[in-house]
């Protein structure tokens, strides 16, 4: 490693017109080195990286210095700066699907910079594009070049993004939360690809993430950022011993696989509040070559949820876990199978408003994104009182006020926030409001659809602890849908592992997490970043993370067309 850093941020500050967002971001990435930049959302890590890439809005101003290959970006002419960024820096973003133009083919995207920036000939660019796709382990690259982004899985698209940045042979890769939107197994694959590339190319990397465990596994050093300042920089390997700042210790403790599953006092002969048996669901989807094909979303799924218990449904996207939840909540209709809730048959969706309200009193749902699931015009008080009124239309005003106070106490929200709107709340506070709203009906079952996936790690722990407390106090049963096994360990006493519409494994959390029987469960467990974890390519040549559509039947084409 040479001594001259490839990228150096020296007391970088970033301000919008009336507010400074980043106060002091200082870090250096040496040649061939990978540095992690870790912090909660809003800590300024993404802004700092966007400043390096030249993606800040026009009215933002920066202070301090950004040096690329030892040269201060601010001192360069705009043309030179643009060229430096285009050729020396490669940036990969969080959501590959949004960051690719949906109207251009993968080939157009791959060759665009080669043709229009480097001035290569079309045929040479095409050849190079195919080589690059091959380098990041995408099988059948020539065919991929003709496809559109919509035809590829998220994991593949992220590899396409990485391959495209390599086209200019950059010195450094800026990776902004590149695996946050991916399943845990796909995340491992993408990280393995990046690991290989760094080895072969002496590529430096600035890796932005909120996941400290992941950062320490794939980088050499980690810079921790809080409230717009880098508070300390640690060596990944000896992070635990080096950490001095309290905030870093909190982040480390928040890594969920640390948490011991709490001893659960379980009532062995508890009655089941929800029983699902033989649930099947198929969808008609447009086929590859015209006509229609049948997608089997659920295939004979059975599980039970005890009164006051907690059941986790784990699986990758496309495994059928969300479809199960939708059917239980009556948002979809199952093709076959029965659903029994507190002894009533719920196999078919409710008919009529009264029946729907009756069911809503028993099962409530909390959604993934608290930024979208709350009405931004409603104050918390309005939001909760609306939810209470649905089920108790004749309650007095005082009773409703009392209930609101009780709910806010249950989710440990400061009562003074009652008249705030979602805009002034943090992600964790919003999700508490969403949970309080669900509890307003005093339900038997709370369905949590990836309810903590969009929240920072530290807040995640708080919310999960809160849910556990609520379960103990109110006796509500929890049905937790997640792709994250570490969440399960914190909260659930039973687990269903799903894959491609089938139940792969079903048992108590201890059995499944400590002694998994199914290969797939083991794969999921091994993919979780932790100390000493190194990403591996587990299935060379695999085209998508896990085939999301397994059972495809060709259906006869409709006649007369």
């Amino acid at each position: 490693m040479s001594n001259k850093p490839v990228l150096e941020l020296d007391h970088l500050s970033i301000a919008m017109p009336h507010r400074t967002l980043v106060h002091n971001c200082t870090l250096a990435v040496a040649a061939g080195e990978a540095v992690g930049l870790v912090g909660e959302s809003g800590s300024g890590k993404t802004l700092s990286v966007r400043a390096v890439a030249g993606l800040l809005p026009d009215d933002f101003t920066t202070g301090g210095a950004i040096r690329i290959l030892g040269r201060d970006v601010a001192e360069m002419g705009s043309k030179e700066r643009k060229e430096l960024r285009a050729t020396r820096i490669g940036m990969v973003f969080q959501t590959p699907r949004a960051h690719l133009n949906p109207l251009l083919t993968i080939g157009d995207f791959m060759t665009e910079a080669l043709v229009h920036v480097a001035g290569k000939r079309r045929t040479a660019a095409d050849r190079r594009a195919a080589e690059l796709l091959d380098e990041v382990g995408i099988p059948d690259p020539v065919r991929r070049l003709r496809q559109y982004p919509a035809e590829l899985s998220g994991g593949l698209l992220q590899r396409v993004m990485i391959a495209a940045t390599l086209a200019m042979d950059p010195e450094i890769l800026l990776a902004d939360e590149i695996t946050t939107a991916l399943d845990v197994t796909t995340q491992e694959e993408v990280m393995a690809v990046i690991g290989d590339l760094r080895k072969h190319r002496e590529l430096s990397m600035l890796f932005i993430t909120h996941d400290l465990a992941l950062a320490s596994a794939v980088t050499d050093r980690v810079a921790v950022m809080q409230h717009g300042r880098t508070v300390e920089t640690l060596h990944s390997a000896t992070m635990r011993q080096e950490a001095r700042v309290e905030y870093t210790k909190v982040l480390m403790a928040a890594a969920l696989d640390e948490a011991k599953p709490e001893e659960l006092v379980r009532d062995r002969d508890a009655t089941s509040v929800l029983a699902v048996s033989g649930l099947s669901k198929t969808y008609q989807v447009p086929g590859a070559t015209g006509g229609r094909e049948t997608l089997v979303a659920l295939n004979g799924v059975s599980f039970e949820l005890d009164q006051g218990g907690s059941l986790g449904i784990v699986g990758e996207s496309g495994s059928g876990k969300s479809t199960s939840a939708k059917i239980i909540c009556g948002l979809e209709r199952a093709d076959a199978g029965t659903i029994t809730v507190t002894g009533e048959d719920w196999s078919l969706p409710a008919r009529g408003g009264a029946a729907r309200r009756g069911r809503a009193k028993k099962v409530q749902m909390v959604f993934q994104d608290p930024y979208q699931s709350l009405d931004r015009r409603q104050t918390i008080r309005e939001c909760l009182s609306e939810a209470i009124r649905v089920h108790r239309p004749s309650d007095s005003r005082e009773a409703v006020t009392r209930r609101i106070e009780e709910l806010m106490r249950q989710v440990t929200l400061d009562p003074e926030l009652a008249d705030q709107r979602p805009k002034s709340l943090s992600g964790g506070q919003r999700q508490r409001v969403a949970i309080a709203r669900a509890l307003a009906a005093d339900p038997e079952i709370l369905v949590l659809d990836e309810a903590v996936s969009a929240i920072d790690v530290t807040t995640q722990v708080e919310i999960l602890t809160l849910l556990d407390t609520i379960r103990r106090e109110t006796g509500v049963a929890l049905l937790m849908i997640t792709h994250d096994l570490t969440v399960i360990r914190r909260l659930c006493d039973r687990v269903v592992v799903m894959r491609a519409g089938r139940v792969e494994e079903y048992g108590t959390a201890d059995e499944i997490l400590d002694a998994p029987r199914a290969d797939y469960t083991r794969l999921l467990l091994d993919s979780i970043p932790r100390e000493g974890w190194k990403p591996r390519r587990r299935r060379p040549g695999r085209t998508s993370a896990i085939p999301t559509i397994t059972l495809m039947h060709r259906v006869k084409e409709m006649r007369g067309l």
Partner: protein
Amino acid sequence: MNWIQLILGRLGGLVLTLLLASVVIYSALLLTPGDPMSALAGGAKPNPELIAQIRAEYHLDDPIWTRYWDWLSGIFVGDFGRSFVYKTDVLGLVAPRFVVTFQLVLLTVAIILVLGVGSGILAATRGRAVDRTMGLLTALGLALPGFVVAILLMWIFAKSLGWFPGFVVAILLMWIFAKSLGWFPVFGEGGDGIDRLWHLILPAFSLATMFLAYISRVTRSSLVAQLHSEHVDTAKVRGIPRGRIFGTHVFRNAAPQILAISGITIAGLFAAAAIVEVAFGLGGIGSLLTEAAARKDLPVVQVTSLLLVTIFVVLNALADFISAVIDPDSVSSGRQA
């Protein structure tokens, strides 16, 4: 396979809509008050023989569904009926009028697309000041008829040029305006070629004002949405030249939306042209319709209305189809591998 399905579906709906429209048009006019007899007899107090003769000639005694069927089947073989008033073939009456309207709409469309899309692009890309100005102008364009805008502009100019006696400026501007109006003929459709184009300029601009403002706003907002989209960030990071980013990543992605809305707008122009035709004394299909309706010339009204409905429905379907072709979703589902 998907395309054939799409086209067949659209065609089926189109035919059904037109059939329904023909029924509504035919029956609604027969239900309106007033007797076609007075129009047919040419104003004179008709004697009984003449009435009987006319009723026989125009099959007025047949049941209505027979007459509807005769009318509709006649249209399919090119017989559009005879005008009550002019006693000539309806087709011969409508065809030249249609040409005028068609030319008017064509010129209007050109104005709308060039100025509307152009000003939308300016508003989206040339900074806040240009954007605000365009926003104000388009709001005016949407709210006010063209001639009011002209007078308003004069007043604003007079006010802001305060160091000059206001009324002098106003008179000057009015003089220039009247003069420039003089360059363009205000009345009639003129002869052929250049003369016709000359005559159509003012009507086309006054027809375009509102639609132009609308398309400008649509263009601006769909461009702004694309400009802030994440794939444009990707292109910027990769150092793609500005021009190419705008052409390939911004404008092309916004085009389906602009096109879809323009299509619907243009389809509506044929009907909206009627007002302008009457105002500027253009012998178009719209003014023909108002004249014929006033004189209870049923065959002309029916055929003209049906023609307008057909144009609207067909253009709408075409716009739908074109935007389906360039829409990203149908691109991927059409070529899924």
